[in-house]
């Protein structure tokens, strides 16, 4: 299958991007300044991420759709306010995670942002679960960019007036060049920022205007170091079908109201795990010194028993040291528990730590 290009491909080339194939797309891994500089620029100023490879699924419907989606997602969608977003998961009956996603209530139904590698399968699953009752569009005609970092609000507001008044995890329709764009105040870097859904034909112009105002394109490499410092999961690594949201330490994203009713896919397992506990759980892991423990690194306890595995690990440019997360047996998941990481045949000391590694600076309320 030929790899796809996003509508920003030319701009990426103009900015000297190095490309990698990711989920069937040619995506920029980094630009000329490199991952560390791009990472820091996002934390200190403002970075633009092309995330057009991600799925933008619009599902159209009213009250019935809300009821049907509540059978699928562990969310209180009935009481979710218009234009508000929630982080959630598409699970199988054993509460294994097919995908993690952001769902937003719009005036016409819901917009769900899906991972690129999962979007086609998610579409199939949802279409089947919703029994083809609703119009569903996995929109290939729209691009998605994220602008993240402390200066992003000012920069984006200069181009699209009014966005600075959005609250974290809420959105609205705006206009750019007479085009309807849907903007949410969200992102995946741990910084204040926005995600912008815009017609393919206009994304190049919008992005160039944002660059002119002082933002910069940032590649997937820095996106990964930023999200890991922020303690956020990457599907296919920290989350997959063999892990449940409770094991992933994401129970905060499951609605209490919905747990009490327990009528969504996977709810039996979720409720059982919430009551009885889990055998493995996702934790933050801070290696001592500079050693980097990458995905699949084995974790041992002080008696040299194999107690888990790293699922994401890299060097955190803002932390200025190695950072990792992984799953360990529950009894070793307490903060400050000393563990050992096997890297290139040698065991290196590390400790369990709380997430995030880097403090988030989301804007909770600006009004």
């Amino acid at each position, binding site marked *: 299958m030929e790899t796809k290009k996003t509508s920003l491909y030319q701009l990426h080339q103009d900015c000297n991007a190095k490309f990698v194939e990711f989920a069937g797309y040619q995506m920029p891994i980094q630009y000329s300044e490199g991952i560390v500089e791009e990472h820091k620029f996002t934390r200190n100023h403002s970075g633009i991420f092309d995330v057009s490879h991600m799925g933008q699924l619009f599902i159209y419907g009213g009250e019935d759709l809300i009821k049907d989606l509540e059978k699928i997602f562990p969310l209180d969608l009935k009481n979710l306010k218009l234009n508000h977003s929630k982080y959630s998961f598409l699970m199988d009956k054993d509460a294994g995670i097919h995908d993690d996603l952001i769902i937003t209530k719009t005036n016409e139904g819901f917009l769900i942002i899906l991972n690129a590698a999962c979007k086609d399968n998610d579409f199939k699953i949802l279409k089947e679960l919703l029994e083809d009752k609703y119009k569903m569009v996995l929109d290939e005609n729209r691009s998605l960019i994220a602008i993240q970092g402390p200066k992003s609000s000012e920069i984006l507001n200069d181009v699209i007036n009014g966005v600075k008044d959005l609250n974290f995890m809420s959105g609205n329709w705006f206009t750019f060049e007479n085009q309807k764009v849907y903007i949410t105040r969200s992102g995946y870097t741990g910084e204040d920022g926005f995600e912008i859904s815009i017609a393919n034909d206009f994304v190049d112009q919008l992005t160039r205007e944002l660059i002119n105002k002082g933002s910069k394109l940032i590649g997937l*490499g820095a996106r990964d*170091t930023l999200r890991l410092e922020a303690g956020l999961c990457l599907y296919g690594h920290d989350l997959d079908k063999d892990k449940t949201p409770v094991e992933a330490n994401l129970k905060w994203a499951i609605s209490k109201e919905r747990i009490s009713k327990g009528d969504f896919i996977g709810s039996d397992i979720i409720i059982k795990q919430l009551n009885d506990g889990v055998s493995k759980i996702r934790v933050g892991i801070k290696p001592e010194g500079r*050693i*980097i423990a990458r995905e699949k690194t084995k974790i041992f306890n002080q008696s040299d028993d194999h107690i888990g595995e790293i699922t994401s690990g890299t*060097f955190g440019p803002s932390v200025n040291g190695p950072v990792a997360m992984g799953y360990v047996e529950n009894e070793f998941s307490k903060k400050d528990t000393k563990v050992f990481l096997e890297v*290139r045949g040698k065991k290196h000391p590390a400790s369990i730590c709380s997430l995030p590694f880097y403090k988030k600076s989301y804007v909770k309320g600006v009004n």
Partner: protein
Amino acid sequence: MSEVKYSKEHEWIKLDGDVATIGITKHATEMLGDIVFAELPEKGSSVEKDGTAGVVESTKAASDVYTPVSGEVVDTNQAIVDDPSKINQDPEDSAWFFKLKIKDPSEMDTLMNKDDYDKFAKETSA
């Protein structure tokens, strides 16, 4: 002091008497991206031509560092372990990796000169 030679694994080597200084090339650092971790061989240990003699890691991945000739490690550059970003800044001079007392000077003959290496680097990265 002899001319600088290069290996297909993107190391450079400079011989001074029977002591060789070894590091990774600028081209290698450009391919790796930001280097954030470096591990060097132990002083006093012996390394064999084309064997592993260290590791560098970028934010993306780990890569082995090989030694282009055999010998005994007589010195290592702690400065690049303490601040691996030095490797990106000055790879072919102050950010050397280790020094070897070489075993067999004829091993130097198997390596490339600068022109050949530049050609090789260009061809292999195209």
